[in-house]
């Protein structure tokens, strides 16, 4: 292992991911706005300037049983994402044997679980705590428990973990079945990527999996899972404004909200980055490979923006069959890959 390369990659890959991810929400919002015949915000506004603005807002303590933990969850989420993108970096291939799809799947699961913790730690004023004389105007207690919005989001987050994210994991493992390995770099190497001596011209020598039948099936399934993991329309029932408003993130304000925005945009970029590594065979190496990697990593956010502009928020009535359908497609992808 080249220690200099390793240290440089460990420092700069997350920095690059962080910098690029600040553009992602702006690009998505701009595309949605154009579809809706609006001008839309400046590209850097939603991902960068609004984050910066929230850092300078007056700090408001959340109503939470564990406010420090509640505040620190976005930071944990951001570092999880940095860790995931590092695992897909060629310099990290030998670190504790972690650069595998199993490790990535596990870390993504932790990321999903964060929403459950968030929801349980949030207790906003907008439902149970709103001072309204329901209980003193002669009415009786009509249910066993009074529950606030965030707890409903927790239930939804849990349902998503169990059902909604199946397509994502199937999408992750289709390349493994094709390449015959769960190692990230083995999958990239299978597609012709070698970090030593990689130039921009080398892109044309690659054989991306996405151009194969199981690859395209896997990519479609991964995209459905991507929409679920970033909680974007149509799979944003956890955050839907129709009832739970912001769901688990309702109590985040000022710095904490800035942190949540950063966590969300980092997730958007990193999950897309994994897609590029697995399906195009270009990992986020600290070399010329980073340029095509970043460009290709915009594919999923752009597609997500287009899909979200044309879809309503789906409830579990639609999510269950859709998840089942995409999971079945993923299984077909796996079978085709084995064959």
């Amino acid at each position, binding site marked *: 292992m080249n220690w200099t390369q390793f240290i440089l990659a460990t420092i700069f890959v997350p920095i690059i991911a962080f910098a690029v991810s600040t553009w992602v929400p702006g690009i998505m919002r701009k595309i949605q706005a154009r579809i*809706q015949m609006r001008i839309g915000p400046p590209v850097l506004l939603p991902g960068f300037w609004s984050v910066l603005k929230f850092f300078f807002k007056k700090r408001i303590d959340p109503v939470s049983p564990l406010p420090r933990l509640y505040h620190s969850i976005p930071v944990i989420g951001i570092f999880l994402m940095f860790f995931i993108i590092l695992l897909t970096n060629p310099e990290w291939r030998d670190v504790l044997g972690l650069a595998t799809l199993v490790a990535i799947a596990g870390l993504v699961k932790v990321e999903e679980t964060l929403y459950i913790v968030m929801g349980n730690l949030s207790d906003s004023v907008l439902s149970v705590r709103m001072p309204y004389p329901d209980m003193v105007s002669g009415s009786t207690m009509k249910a066993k428990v009074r529950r606030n919005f965030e707890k409903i989001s927790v239930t939804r987050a849990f349902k998503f973990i169990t059902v909604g994210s199946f397509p994502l994991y199937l999408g992750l493992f289709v390349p493994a079945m094709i390449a015959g390995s769960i190692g990230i770099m083995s999958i990239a190497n299978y597609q012709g990527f070698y970090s030593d001596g990689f130039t921009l011209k080398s892109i044309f020598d690659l054989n991306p999996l996405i151009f194969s039948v199981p690859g395209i099936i896997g990519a479609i399934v991964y995209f459905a899972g991507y929409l679920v993991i970033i909680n974007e329309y149509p799979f944003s029932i956890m955050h839907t404004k129709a*009832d739970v408003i912001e769901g688990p993130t309702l109590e985040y304000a000022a710095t904490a909200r800035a942190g949540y925005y950063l966590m969300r945009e980092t997730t958007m970029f990193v999950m897309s980055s994994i897609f590029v590594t697995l399906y195009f065979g270009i990992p986020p190496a600290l070399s010329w490979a980073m340029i095509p990697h970043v460009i290709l990593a915009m594919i999923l956010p752009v597609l997500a923006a287009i899909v979200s502009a044309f879809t309503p928020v789906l409830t579990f009535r639609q999510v269950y069959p859709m998840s089942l359908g995409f999971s079945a497609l993923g299984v077909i992808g796996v079978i085709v890959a084995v064959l």
Partner: protein
Amino acid sequence: MIMSDTDRRDRAEYEVPLGPLHSALLEPFRIRLFVDDERVVDTEITYDTAHRGIERIMEGMPVQKALIITERICGICSHVHLWNSTRMVENGLGIEIPQRAEYIRVIGNELERIHSHLLFLGHAFEILGHETFSMRCFMLREPVQNMLFLLSGNRVHYTISVIGGVRPRCDIDKEKKKNLFEMLNNLEEGCKNFANRATKDTLIISRIKDIGYLSKEDAVKYGALGPNLRASGVNDDVRMRVREYTDNFDFDYIVFDGGTVFDRVACRVYEVLESIKIIRQALETLPDEEPMNVNYEIGEMDFSHSYNEAARGEIYDSCALDESGRIRNYIDRTPSMTSISAMEVSCIGDHVTDASIIIASCDPCLTCTNRMTIVDEKKNKEYILSPEEVKRMTRRRKV
């Protein structure tokens, strides 16, 4: 409340209170959802946070001054309130109205219905999370606002009707008519395209079909009105009984049988097209005469009443005048007043997320509805009248 207390306690796992402050509620009201595994088993809607005391303000005011206050009841259906209150006084005093004025009042009402329905659709799609359709509804609504501006000089409170006819500034000359026709043609094309898209989009339909079911019997029992009633298969429209409509215009009453959110949405979409038809007929056959009869006298009037069809359903106005023409016992009932129980019952059995769209699909206008809080000074207690109590108070009186 629809269920008995025992049933509720047995079935409801937890309660989710929403509002009166909530991003999905355009107006302040309280919803309590009693839920079992994200399925609503019972609901309770309370609306008592925006009392304005309009009827009390009007008491003792000269009728010419007072009627304009009825327009301020609502910012969406302002014209029909003023028209109906004016019509009620005109009926009571036997004042003749030029036919041209009747046509212009109808045009105002139908334009108002279009913009109200488009506002409803924009809001409904926003709740569904379909921003593109929501924006499109608001884009379609903008020319309607412009047409109302062209007709009356205002975009919100138009003040078209006045006792004896319509205000001279709201009269339609040749240039105005030409522009209105042009705008109406563009609007019709846009609305037809939208109706075609909105009622055939599979994802939208999967969200709104088969939820918020309100049976024909329940719609009648719980007092649903307007499009909510017609979407449950009851062909009832006050316009069938309003002379200004029955004598002059030919149009269809949109009735759907399903009673679901889809039917309530589709009913409004197609009513927009019918309203366009009525406006076109009114503009084509607009009588050539003065739009105002100034030969009338205001004096004592026994209780008079008038019904009309607003965008959300039946509205009712009633009052008497004393010998100097001052208002006595003004009563104004808006359609949302009786639709609230229907909203409660239609939520039952559906997902919590769907509750917002189900309530919104009944198109409540609660700020208009909230009229009266009873304060008992002796017992130091205040309470809100139930819809049933209010209905009893607004029952027709013999003239």
